């Protein structure tokens, strides 16, 4: 079989196809075949690891791009017209000239596409050439290659903190147990480490892995996009099969952590890897406005055809009416005159050419330009600039700015988007006593303060060792204050640099102990040591330190986030800040330790030089990363969830330092320095049914079996036994009630609460239990259930120790933003992977849920239950809505759904009802949602309700959702750049959303909508002049203007003003838009660009063109006026009318407006004068002649007045009689700054706290029509009416307040 044999080639291709589509793939090592030709390679049919996301190739760019561009209907139209112009019998203008516009447009678009594709190419190239280690048989070792060289069947070695280049079956790791930790935040946004095991029974345990000796066959399934599932078995030469699953697969894009190196066998490469398959390419987004615009363009086409038909018929009848062949009828070259019908047939096409401007060719280009301008302003907004990360907003999608002004639904991620994803220990309650940790709270608020000081290059000497805490001495020492200040600054710095360490920025690790509690603990310790009795405070902190699964790792195996993985999985998007990322990667060497000016532990503070190479804040704005390790003790905590880490750090602050954890023991150092080693008897892991976890240890001193349990309050409270320590006085019996009260307070504050309990298990009980536990573990059927049962058996009669409140700190101004968005008529959904309790807590904290809301909790186990719950809820909600008492109020219904229920609700037969219910809910909270479900929800709402959706998220798990929504917003924050890459806009803080939507969205939308309407109007008004003239020239497609002047008209005279209008017009100022969010609603739904406004302006155009034509016509009727002299006043009048029309529409005149409007007029005058000075042109000297004629001016004046009178009057009347909210907003704008501010503040004050419910756009009580008397008195009046209004609404609101607040008024402090 020769290589060039075409049959062989086809057969080869078919084989390849078959191999790729096989359900099972048999993969063997490439090593025996190394160096052989391509034909001999066993895995040659499978794709390599190089990825290609470009659309075009160099050679095929022009044809492909043209093909792509001609998918746009408009382009075909324009080309068709240009061609039509070349047909002699129908041409209306010089054909070559007609080609210019379309050529310009096509080439501009092609340039843009080429640039975008080039950027994709560059990012692919960078990604493909990242280094990795592949085993080479020739060199007998792993040699450095590039990602694109990886093939299926290769052996790849990944070092610590490196990114996995392809999907690898893990065969060997440096760990003697064959374990490997990976971080999958690039894929799913989860920051905790995941364990991967080598395929058992292979060559795992040998210290050195011999790739060459691998002679098994790996059989795996076809590539799929399921990140959590993988089926595979390895067939050894002796036909023994070893199964392997996802627990042995290293996914492309993950980062290897805590493991020196890992060696894997490539099973999927390149586009077949799970992460690439998970990345459905970005949807081509077309804005809603543009979709509507296209519909209106079709109307224009119909209008055009109708007008052409009128022209053709008119021509026909005109010709029919002629009795003979008049001298002005030009025969063809043979002296033959076309028949009227043929001539009118030709005329139809000539008319199309004549009236082609009706379909606005320049509109598409203008829109592009306007959007560029709008994006310029958005990206230059200083309010959307984040100083800490030194990043502006990035607009990645250039064509959907106006959609920002029409959003009706926002789908938000929680962690990292609403919250900072930093867990902070806030306060605790021990034995019914609340320790508010005021200093800690102060520290946290101080850290929140915006820093404006100059960056301090941190270079301070190690602090003198301190023992314990003495707040007073610190505060009295000015130097110390200063230093602390600096250090705070530094900490903030580090915290905001992408925290390269999971959950361990100084903010999270440093806890300032409560003084009272600290004293209690030190007393307790001394007593407990001496009396051998355990003080509850002492126990509480032991529980904090012990009852978790936090792994302690030493500084050597530290884990840090690398930034050199530039998001390969979104490579279809241009990598805007690729270079930035590379810089970051380079700066990784600058590792420094977070400096602490106070040591929290009793161990002496010791600078570790290794971690102290003094950071340099380099110019690129990239902050050096820092070690997560507490250098004072040399330990690092690796927690599965950030709250656990926060608790361990809290314990550490009080001196209870978790030193190490092995499966069998936990080592804790006490404040006194004593080290206790607890033997771990068992760990009852967390599950979502029990909502708690326990650790059973043997106390080293008392030798008792002690069970420490922590969990959600409701799962603990029912298991409590007798109060702790009967020896304590009777008033301690209230511990449970008090703690419960504190827990409620915490929850109100949005803290995550956990209860800690202890139980001493007698030796006898333990023996019994451990036997049942053993048998449960050994069981085959229902093992998990049995194990859970045993756990439940043990977790009884618990003794409450205390409770903690942990804060997942909300980002700055999140509640305010959400409240404002809600007032703007946007429904906010939060889709989170978190558990419902946390999500609900955060929901309250960020004012997504309000206390008086009706919260519907949907959580069901099977579909049947789900259906019935859904039906009954829907029924209830409907009933509620139909209740006459609730007519004017929007029921503030909120929905909380868990992931499993959501999956059922999304199924085909339930989704309709679900959408129905969701539509009536003000906010929806979905918990435990998978990335796929997120996008499913977004798609469902978008498609079923036909609303504008926005998705915002920060992690890779939000990518699907971001791409599914109409607008995707990525938050460049803690979790890599995945979301940002996939997004249309990238912001750095959630609060930026407020200005982005309310101000820029509103502006962009109204600007563009008005600009487009104006454009249609302009073209119609202009073209209709030509049309009316046809009635007086026998419908012969004559123009009374020179063709060049017609081109000038659209190209120079009237092109810039609408673009300026679309970029710069400002109907309402930013302050008012932010202060009165209701104004946003004007853009939602149909918005300003509606069927109605479109046709009104079209009718206006008709009217104006009639006036502009017929007034000059009636003046010049029967006089000795020639064609071009007649055309001049028409041109002038039309120009002036069109410009003045725009100036009626312009809401705010800045210098730029004046310059452009007057400039346009001046340019048109000068250009026309210049043009009419050219001898060869037809309209030679006509304008000059007209300018000396007073009639010309008289015509211009009266025509413009008559043409604009209706619109002007309409505006005046509407503004006076029925002012729209926007107009009222503008009135507000005209007040002076302080009055305005006071007014907005007052008004917001009355709305605040969710008291006022408004079902529809309540017109703000604006001082409209009060231009002259915008006095305080007037405002006062106004506000009182408003107040009475809102109190009325409040009564309605009370009816819907079903969620009773058990502890109101709440006084937690």
């Amino acid at each position, binding site marked *: 079989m020769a290589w060039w044999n075409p049959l062989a080639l086809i057969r080869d291709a078919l084989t390849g196809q078959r191999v790729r589509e096989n359900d099972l793939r048999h993969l063997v090592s490439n090593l025996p075949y190394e160096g052989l030709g391509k034909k001999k390679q066993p895995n040659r049919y499978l794709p390599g690891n190089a990825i290609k996301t470009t659309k075009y190739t160099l050679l095929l760019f022009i044809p492909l791009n043209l093909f792509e561009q001609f998918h746009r209907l408009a382009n075909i139209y324009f080309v068709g017209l240009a061609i039509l112009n070349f047909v002699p019998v129908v041409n209306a203008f010089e054909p070559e000239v007609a080609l210019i516009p379309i050529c310009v447009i096509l080439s501009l678009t092609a340039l843009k596409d080429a640039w975008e594709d080039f950027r994709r190419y560059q990012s692919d190239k960078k990604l493909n050439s990242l280094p990795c280690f592949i085993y080479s048989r020739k060199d007998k070792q792993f040699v450095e290659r590039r990602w694109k060289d990886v093939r299926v069947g290769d052996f790849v070695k990944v070092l610590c903190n490196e990114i996995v280049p392809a999907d690898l079956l893990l065969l060997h790791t440096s760990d003697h147990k064959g374990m490997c930790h990976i971080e999958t935040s690039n894929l799913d946004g989860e920051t905790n480490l995941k364990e991967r095991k080598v395929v058992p029974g292979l060559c795992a345990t040998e210290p050195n892995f011999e790739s060459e000796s691998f002679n098994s066959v790996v059989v795996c399934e076809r590539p799929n996009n399921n990140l959590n599932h993988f089926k595979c078995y390895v067939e050894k030469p002796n036909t023994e099969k070893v199964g392997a699953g996802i627990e042995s697969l290293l996914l492309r894009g993950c980062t290897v952590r805590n493991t020196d190196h890992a060696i894997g066998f490539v099973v999927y490469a390149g586009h077949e890897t799970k992460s690439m398959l998970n990345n459905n390419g970005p949807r081509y987004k077309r804005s809603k406005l543009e979709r509507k615009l296209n519909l209106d363009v079709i109307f224009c086409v119909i209008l055009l055809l109708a007008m052409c038909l009128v022209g053709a018929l008119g021509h026909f009848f005109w010709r029919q009416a002629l009795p003979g062949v008049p001298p002005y009828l030009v025969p063809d070259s043979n002296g033959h005159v076309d028949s009227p019908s043929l001539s009118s047939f030709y005329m139809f096409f000539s008319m199309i050419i004549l009236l082609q401007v009706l379909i606005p060719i320049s509109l598409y280009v203008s829109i592009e330009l306007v959007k560029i301008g709008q994006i310029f302003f958005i990206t230059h907004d200083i309010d959307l600039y984040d100083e800490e990360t030194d990043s502006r907003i990035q607009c990645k999608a250039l064509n959907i700015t106006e959609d920002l002004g029409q959003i009706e639904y926002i789908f938000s991620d929680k962690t990292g988007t609403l919250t900072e994803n930093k867990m902070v220990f806030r306060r605790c309650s021990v034995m019914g006593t609340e320790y508010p940790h005021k200093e800690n709270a102060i520290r946290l608020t101080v850290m929140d303060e915006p820093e404006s000081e100059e960056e301090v290059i941190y270079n301070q000497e190690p602090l003198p060792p301190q023992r314990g805490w003495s707040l007073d001495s610190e505060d009295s020492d000015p130097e110390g204050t200063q230093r602390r200040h600096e250090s705070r600054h530094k900490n903030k710095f580090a915290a905001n640099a992408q925290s390269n360490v999971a959950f361990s920025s100084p903010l999270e690790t440093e806890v300032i102990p409560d003084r009272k509690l600290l004293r209690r603990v030190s007393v307790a310790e001394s007593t407990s040591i001496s009396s051998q009795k355990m003080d509850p405070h002492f126990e509480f902190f032991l529980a904090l330190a012990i009852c978790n699964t936090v792994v302690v790792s030493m500084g050597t195996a530290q884990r840090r986030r690398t930034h050199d993985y530039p998001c390969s999985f979104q490579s279809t998007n241009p990598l805007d800040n690729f270079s930035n990322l590379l810089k970051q990667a380079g700066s990784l060497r600058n590792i420094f330790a977070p400096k602490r000016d106070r040591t929290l532990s009793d161990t002496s503070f010791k600078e570790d030089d290794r971690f102290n190479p003094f950071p340099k804040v380099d110019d690129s704005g990239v902050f050096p990363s820092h070690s997560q390790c507490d250098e004072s003790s040399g330990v690092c905590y690796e927690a599965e969830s950030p709250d656990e880490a926060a608790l361990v750090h809290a314990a550490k602050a009080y001196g209870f330092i978790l030193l190490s954890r092995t499966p069998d023991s936990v080592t804790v150092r006490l404040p006194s320095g004593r080290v206790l080693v607890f033997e771990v008897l068992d760990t009852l892991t967390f599950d979502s049914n029990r909502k708690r976890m326990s650790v059973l240890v043997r106390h080293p001193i008392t030798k008792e079996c002690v069970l420490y349990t922590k969990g959600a309050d409701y799962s603990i409270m029912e298991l409590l036994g007798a109060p702790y320590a009967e020896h304590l006085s009777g008033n301690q019996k209230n511990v449970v009630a008090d703690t419960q009260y504190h827990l409620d307070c915490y929850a109100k504050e949005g803290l995550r609460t956990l209860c800690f309990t202890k139980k001493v298990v007698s030796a006898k009980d333990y023996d019994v239990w451990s036997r049942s536990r053993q048998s449960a573990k050994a069981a085959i059927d229902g093992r998990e259930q049995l194990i859970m049962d045993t756990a439940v058996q043990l977790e009884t009669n618990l003794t409450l120790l205390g409770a903690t409140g942990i804060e997942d700190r909300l980002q700055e101004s999140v509640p305010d933003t959400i409240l404002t968005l809600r007032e703007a008529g946007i429904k906010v959904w939060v889709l989170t992977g978190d558990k419902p309790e946390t999500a609900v807590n955060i929901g309250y904290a960020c004012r997504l849920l309000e206390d008086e809301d009706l919260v519907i909790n949907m959580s069901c186990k099977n579909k049947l239950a789900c259906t019935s719950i859904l039906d009954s809820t829907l029924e209830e909600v409907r009933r509620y809505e139909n209740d006459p008492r609730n007519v004017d109020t929007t029921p503030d219904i909120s929905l909380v759904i868990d992931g499993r229920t959501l999956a059922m609700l999304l199924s085909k037969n339930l989704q309709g009802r679900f959408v129905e219910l969701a539509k009536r809910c003000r906010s929806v909270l979905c918990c435990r949602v998978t990335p796929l479900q997120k996008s499913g929800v977004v798609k469902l709402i978008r498609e079923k309700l036909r609303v504008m959706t926005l998705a915002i998220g920060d992690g890779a798990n939000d990518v699907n959702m971001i791409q599914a929504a109409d607008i995707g917003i990525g938050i460049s924050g803690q979790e890599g750049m995945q979301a940002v890459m996939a997004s249309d806009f990238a912001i750095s803080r959630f609060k930026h959303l407020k200005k982005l939507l309310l101000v820029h969205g509103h502006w962009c939308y109204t600007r563009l909508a008005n600009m487009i309407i104006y454009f249609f109007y302009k073209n119609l008004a202009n073209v209709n002049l030509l049309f009316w003239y046809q009635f007086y020239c026998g419908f012969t497609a004559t123009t009374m203007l020179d063709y060049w002047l017609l081109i000038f008209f659209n190209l120079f005279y009237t092109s810039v003003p609408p673009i300026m209008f679309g970029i710069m017009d400002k109907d309402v100022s930013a302050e008012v838009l932010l202060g009165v969010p209701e104004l946003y609603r004007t853009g939602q739904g149909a918005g300003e660009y509606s069927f109605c406004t479109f046709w009104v302006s079209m009718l206006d155009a008709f009217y104006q063109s009639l006036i502009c034509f017929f007034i000059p016509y009636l003046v010049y009727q029967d006089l*000795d006026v020639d064609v071009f002299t007649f055309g001049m006043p028409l041109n002038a009048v039309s120009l002036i009318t069109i410009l003045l029309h725009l100036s009626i529409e312009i809401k705010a005149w800045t210098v730029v407006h004046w310059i452009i409007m007057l400039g346009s007029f001046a340019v048109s005058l000068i250009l026309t004068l210049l043009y009419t000075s050219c001898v060869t042109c037809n309209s030679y000297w006509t304008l000059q002649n007209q300018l000396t004629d007073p009639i010309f001016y008289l015509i211009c004046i009266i025509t413009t007045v008559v043409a604009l009178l209706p619109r002007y009057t309409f505006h005046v009347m509407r503004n006076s009689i029925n002012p729209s909210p926007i107009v009222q907003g503008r009135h507000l704008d005209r007040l002076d700054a302080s009055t305005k501010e006071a007014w907005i503040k007052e008004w917001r004050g009355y709305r605040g706290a969710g008291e006022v419910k408004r079902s529809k756009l309540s017109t703000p009580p604006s001082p409209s029509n009060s231009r002259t008397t915008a006095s305080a008195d007037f405002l006062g009046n106004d506000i009182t009416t408003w107040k009475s209004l809102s109190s009325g609404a409040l009564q309605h609101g009370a009816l819907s307040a079903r969620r009773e607040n058990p502890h109101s008024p709440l006084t937690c402090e």
Partner: protein
Amino acid sequence: MVKEENESPNRPDNTAFTQQRLPAWQPMLSAGIVIPGFVLIGLAFIGIGVALLITSRNIQVLELDYTGTEQNSPCFQCSDPDKQNCVCTLQFSINRLFEGPVFFYYGLSNYFQNYRRYGVSRDDGQLYGDLSYFKEPYDQCEPYRYDRNKRPIVPCGSVVNSLFNDTFRLFQIVNGQQKEVPLDGKGIAWWTDYNIKFRNPTVTPLRNAFNGTVKPLFWPRPAYELDTSDPANNGFINQDFLVWMRRAALPDFRKLYRRITEGDYTNGLPAGNYSLEIAYNYPVLSFNGRKMVVFSNVSWMGGKNEFLGIAYLVIGTLCVVMSVVMLIVYAKFKFPEEE
């Protein structure tokens, strides 16, 4: 603490322009503001309208149709297309002095000089006196480009070909005697047309330039013999030719033929009887057209036009009415919240 001096390049400029905070004038259209405007515009318009109307009323116009399709028309027999070199005479009288200067127009109706293909059927190169176009006229001139023998037609094209060729002589009948009214044919065309846009070839005598070319089909005489009385008024700068070449905008039009400014008629046409001798050549039956002559005097605003004055009056009144409406609206909707 010192404010950060070297701001990062990423930080947007905090200028009024980039932050969209440029000081702006925000006009609010509402009833109260526009009332004075409406009143002012209304009054001004009424004033202009009155002035225009008075001016227009003072303009005298005399229109005489001589198409001759009616039996009783003196030109009836001339309207027969077969009749050559027909002359007819139109009698008319003027009651009072027709103030001068009197403009003498000929008018055509239903004549579409603005037909597109008619309009482009000309060769500006020829008319500019460029001899190279004499040999090969512009192709848009088809079918009036070459004659049957492939000789180029100069000037070529449809506009030229259809040159209006009726001529008029005006007599005042004084005591039964015909006294010819001198007609001034100079300067009736645009100055720019006569001096710049149209030029004769710089060949003397002019007829030599036309060697090898033929005259337009419908023309009785070649271009260099258009005006037999005045040799300077020939070729492409013949005034009547220039007037014709400036195509009328609308199908009913008049074109300036002569001015009456000389001799006894400097002050206008005195009252009395007149006769107009018409050399009837131009056929109009093929398009149901009509021919007429128009005598008119002009004011600063040109010819007689009542429409503009009336329009100004109407709109002015409308504006005043609108201002009253606005006043009512203003009074009613001044403070909507207080109600």
